[in-house]
């Protein structure tokens, strides 16, 4: 993305020009007044220097542009921008660039102030190279360019280059679940369904019926029994996964990709990893955020949907006075009854626990992912902090235990395979409830 500002204005004399003229003139006057012509040696450079510099003064100041090489990056990935100053046929200029850089972009060199010599005929570029430390939607800039001509004697008005948008996607923490989803419901996918149909896994061998395809005949059993038998297979289905992001509270300090993770960091990175895993294996993944607003990303699958989810995730924000979890999630149809619902929550208040209990009562396949980082602690510290924090932890542990008691598995997010155990548990739970209902 390139932004070209309006044309700049003219040149202004600096204090250095006034100083050179003043010091040189006074030295010359002193030489004449005192009859000491050696003082001309001191006055000479102060008068000759400006004369030489101003004689080849540039006609106008250059028009710079701020360009971002790629408007998207990923946590830990590079961010490259450049301020290009065109080289008009004019004497060399000193350009001083100051760029405002987002907090979560660490520049490789300097802190945002750069000087460069603009010499024709080559267009000069000041490179702003850095690393994106945290996911989010930022703006790089605005940048200010100040052109200095005639060796510091003339300066142009500040040229302000508007900021450019920069999106940093969350890095997907490795997540690789090998467990089948409990309620496969689509018409194609990788999960084995209990329903018989065309698929890869052998379920049974049964007598031939009109309509069976000839290539399904099991010749070995047919020869042994003397009657035509065919292989019955389990159909392959996809599943829907709904991720509920509880971002009403932030806890723990965020240190970027290489530092500590806050609740928002863990929530967004875990959501990105789970979405990547399921969307790329063919399942439909929907995301719902309740926090500063109630946002929803409709269910979709494939890599394109994963990229859409990343775009959606960088807009996640926290505002405690926003939408709370409640019946609205069900009444608005935000969570399909047949979907596997994964709630990413720090379980910092009773509302979150109530939501989980309510979803469990509706018979949904439900997994809660605890996103509270271990290093989170109260900001204000006094002699009662340790005891109070301990009490709060005990109460939270008790809440988690009660949730497990009503059939809500709660698992802390730990990356690769951390949900496998829980998913296996949910799968068995779903199978048991189905058997009991019969």
């Amino acid at each position: 993305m390139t932004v070209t500002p309006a044309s700049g204005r003219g040149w202004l004399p600096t204090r250095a020009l006034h100083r050179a003229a003043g010091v040189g003139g006074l030295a010359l006057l002193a030489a004449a007044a005192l009859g000491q012509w050696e003082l001309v040696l001191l006055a000479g450079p102060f008068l000759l220097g400006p004369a030489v510099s101003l004689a080849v003064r540039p006609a106008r100041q250059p028009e710079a542009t701020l360009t971002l090489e790629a408007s998207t990056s990923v946590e830990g990935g590079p961010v490259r921008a450049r301020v290009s100053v065109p080289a008009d046929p004019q004497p060399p200029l000193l350009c001083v660039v100051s760029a405002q850089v987002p907090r979560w972009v660490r520049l490789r060199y300097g802190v945002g102030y750069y000087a460069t010599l603009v010499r024709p005929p080559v267009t000069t570029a000041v490179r702003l190279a850095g690393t994106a430390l945290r996911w989010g939607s930022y703006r790089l800039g605005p940048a200010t360019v100040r052109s200095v001509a005639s060796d510091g004697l003339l300066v142009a008005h500040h040229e302000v280059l508007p900021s450019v948008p920069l999106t940093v996607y969350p890095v997907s923490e490795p997540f690789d679940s090998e467990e089948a989803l409990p309620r496969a419901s689509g018409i194609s996918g990788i999960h084995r369904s209990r329903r018989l149909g065309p698929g890869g896994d052998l379920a049974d061998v049964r007598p031939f019926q009109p309509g069976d395809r000839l290539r399904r005949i099991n010749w070995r059993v047919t020869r042994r029994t003397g009657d035509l038998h065919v292989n019955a297979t389990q159909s392959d289905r996809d599943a829907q996964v709904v991720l509920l992001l509880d971002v009403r509270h932030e806890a723990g300090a965020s240190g970027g990709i290489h530092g500590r993770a806050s609740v928002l960091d863990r929530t967004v990175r875990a959501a990105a990893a789970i979405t990547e895993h399921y969307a790329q294996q063919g399942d439909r993944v929907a995301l719902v955020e309740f926090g500063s607003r109630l946002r929803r990303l409709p269910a979709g699958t494939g890599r394109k949907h994963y990229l859409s989810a990343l775009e959606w995730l960088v807009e996640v924000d926290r505002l405690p006075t926003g939408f709370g979890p409640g019946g609205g999630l069900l009444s608005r149809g935000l969570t399909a009854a047949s979907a596997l619902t994964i709630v990413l929550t720090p379980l910092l208040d009773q509302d979150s626990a109530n939501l989980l209990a309510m979803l469990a009562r509706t018979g949904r396949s439900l997994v809660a992912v605890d996103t509270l980082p271990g290093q989170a602690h109260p900001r204000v510290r006094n002699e009662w902090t340790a005891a109070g924090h301990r009490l709060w932890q005990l109460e939270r542990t008790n809440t988690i235990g009660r949730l497990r008691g009503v059939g809500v598995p709660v698992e802390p997010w730990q990356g690769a395979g951390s949900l496998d155990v829980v998913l296996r548990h949910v799968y068995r739970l779903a199978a048991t409830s189905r058997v009991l209902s019969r």
Partner: protein
Amino acid sequence: MTAISSRGWRRYPLVERVGYHLARVRAWGRRATVAGLAVRVVIWLTGLGGLLLALPGSLRGPALPLAVFLALLPAVAPASAWVALLELAAIGTVALTLVDESRQVLVPVLLAVAALLYAHHTSAALGAQLRTDTVVPLAVFRHWLARAGLVLAGSALLGLGIVVLAGQPRAGADTGYLALGAAATAVAAIAVGALVHRSGGPAGAD
């Protein structure tokens, strides 16, 4: 880091104030670049050298602490009036030494003072445009140095020519010389003004 304003100065204990300023200095130290600091060091060294060389040899020792302090002021604030004051002080000292018949100032020393003062002036002009945390490529310094060298060489030749043509220095002022000097200064001022304001003036012009 919360800023300690001048109004809330008394509310903070001394230790907190010292810690606050130490933290600010540390933060500045982390941000500063070698090139940004080098410009300030050059301003300081050239100012110090110009002042010391301008002084008679017998006064250099006693005046050293004061010269070190005076040279620090333009280095810290290169856009301030301290730069001009230091240069005028050095030139005034040379003028007084020249007037004093008991002392002798050699031309090479004058050339060295001229070179140091001009280097002080031009490095302050550069330093006024650069923060100490600015990343500056070497090309900027090369260009600046080359131009300053050319100016110094040209002005040295011109000045030596004028000195030789004018003959031996005279004790005291002469009305003719004074008029000539005033005229030369006026011509120089007009020339500089014309160069600045040519082509419709610098400010507001495209």
